[in-house]
């Protein structure tokens, strides 16, 4: 599935420089820069409402940005960046008569008033995409009747069938049970290895993906920090990001971000901090 990508895999799949996003008068992102490389799994972390979805949609070109550049290397069939996208809420109606196969097939030029590739080639691609997410045996099932984890896989196959360079997933782990969550994480890891994709997935909690991500983009207070997990998710870098003291604690292999204990000079963090629930146990 990675023909056409290997030639320029030395270039980053996506380069974002000095990006500013303002939506409806609200500043979402200020001077953000980061790079997404091939064969890399990146976690986009931030509290609910921090602007993760907005950032993803800006990369997709669905929301205009105020200034800055978004550069992607490969362009797809219609001059659009070849980016696969799995949206956050997938409400597939069980009453819609559409099979997994059909859903994935619509990923190839779903806009298509005319079709650019042969039927045989299309079916081959769909079959490949289904295989890569381990859904071949469910190809004939009605999508609306599949479980949450299976629907998620079907959506990933839909995104992959267009042969993107970059795969964006918006909160793919929300609403999944622990087992399904683990399955999706494993799937993304193996997809990265086999296809050389650059994958960016957003999550409000770092912990489920802590083990597998190569890079973290941390979004808070309209600012963004990116880099290897152990560099970004530290007391000093997150404190700088939030503009007041927060502490990163590692317990039993989990990362917990709490407002700092010794920050008596900052009275206002309780209202501002996204994880303020965690402070309730303090005196």
């Amino acid at each position, binding site marked *: 599935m990675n023909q056409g990508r290997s030639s320029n895999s030395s270039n980053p799949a996506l380069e974002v420089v000095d990006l500013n996003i303002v939506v409806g008068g609200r500043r979402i992102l200020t001077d953000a820069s980061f790079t997404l490389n091939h064969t890399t799994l990146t976690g986009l972390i931030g509290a609910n409402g921090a602007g993760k979805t907005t950032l993803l949609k800006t990369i997709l070109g*669905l929301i205009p940005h105020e200034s800055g550049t978004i550069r992607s290397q490969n362009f797809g069939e219609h001059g659009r960046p070849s980016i696969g*996208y799995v949206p956050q809420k997938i409400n597939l109606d069980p*009453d*819609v008569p559409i*099979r997994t196969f*059909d859903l994935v097939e619509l990923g190839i030029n779903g806009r298509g*008033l005319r079709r650019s590739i042969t039927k045989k080639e299309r079916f081959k691609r769909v079959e490949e995409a289904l295989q890569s997410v381990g859904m071949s045996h469910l190809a004939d099932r009605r999508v609306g*009747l599949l479980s949450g984890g299976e629907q998620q896989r079907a959506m990933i196959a839909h995104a992959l069938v267009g042969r993107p360079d970059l795969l964006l997933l918006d909160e793919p782990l929300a609403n999944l049970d622990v087992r399904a969550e683990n399955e999706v994480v494993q799937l993304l890891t193996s997809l990265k290895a086999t296809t050389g994709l650059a994958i960016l997935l957003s999550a409000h909690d770092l912990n489920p993906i802590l083990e597998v991500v190569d890079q973290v983009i941390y979004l808070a207070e309209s600012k963004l920090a990116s880099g290897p997990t152990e560099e970004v998710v530290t007391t000093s870098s997150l404190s700088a990001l939030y503009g007041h003291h927060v502490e990163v604690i590692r317990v039993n292999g989990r990362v917990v971000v709490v407002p700092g204990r010794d920050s008596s000079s900052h009275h206002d963090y309780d209202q501002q901090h996204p994880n303020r629930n965690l402070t309730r146990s303090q005196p």
Partner: protein
Amino acid sequence: MIISTLLHDIVAAGFLTNPAVRTAIVVGALSATVSSVVGLFTVVRGQSFAGHALSDIGAAGGSGAALANISPLLGFVAMNLIGALTLEAFQPKRVRGRDLVTGVVLGAILGIAALLLYLDTTLTTSTGTTVSVLFGSLFTLPSNSLPLAIGIGSVSIFTIAWIYRPLLLSSVSPELAQVQGVRVRWISLVFLLALAAAVSLSALLTGAILSTALLIGPPTIATRRTHSIRSALVLSIAIGIGVTLAGILLSYDSVAWTSQGVGWPVSFCIVALLTLVFFLVPRRTHTVGEHLTKDEPRSAPTPPSSSALVSK
């Protein structure tokens, strides 16, 4: 022998030679086909109310046509296109509240329909306009309306065929469609216009307020039995045509059965048969190896007991 006697009993004398019946069969089959195709997407997109609203809106056009002395079909189509544009213009982005806006637009246009029908009955001497516009009958159809009906039907079907893929994708998920560069708003408008044309046509068949039956009935039954859009389309058309033809036959036969020789209206026969089919056809919960067309890849057999069907 027995079969021919039976057939003779079912198909009353003169059924196929009667010119009114012939026109009814052709127009009936045509509009049932168009309604079933367009209706499938209407049901899938959850726009049943908009589909029905357009038929009522068309009634205003039908009554206006009687005033202006033009073909009622033209009146229906013109008013429906205006209605579709109005609905789309006021449509909120979110799905919540969509029905409310449809309702307010419908209320306003129904008010105008009331006025036009009132003027019809007071200014012209035709007292039956209300009944013929709202409950129109196939048997009273002039045969010269056939070319216009065929034209409008083909436009509607070809429009759906033209936007098939983006329409299907944006019906499943508007967000996914946007990512692929589909102009969702535009597709939605084009679909509403195709819907308006289809509704106008079936309004001729069963009358304005009953055209909803053909639009919603066959596709609803079809989506309960099938798992792919194509088989749903085929089944929907089959049910639509079957019910319409059976309804026409039943209505024709009923003249002989009822005491005063009044007969049952076609619209009633069609709707009653449709409701019967709806209750008789059970919902199919899942598939075990749906038949694929021959050039689609065959996948591994579905494991019989799977947790996959436990809905979330």
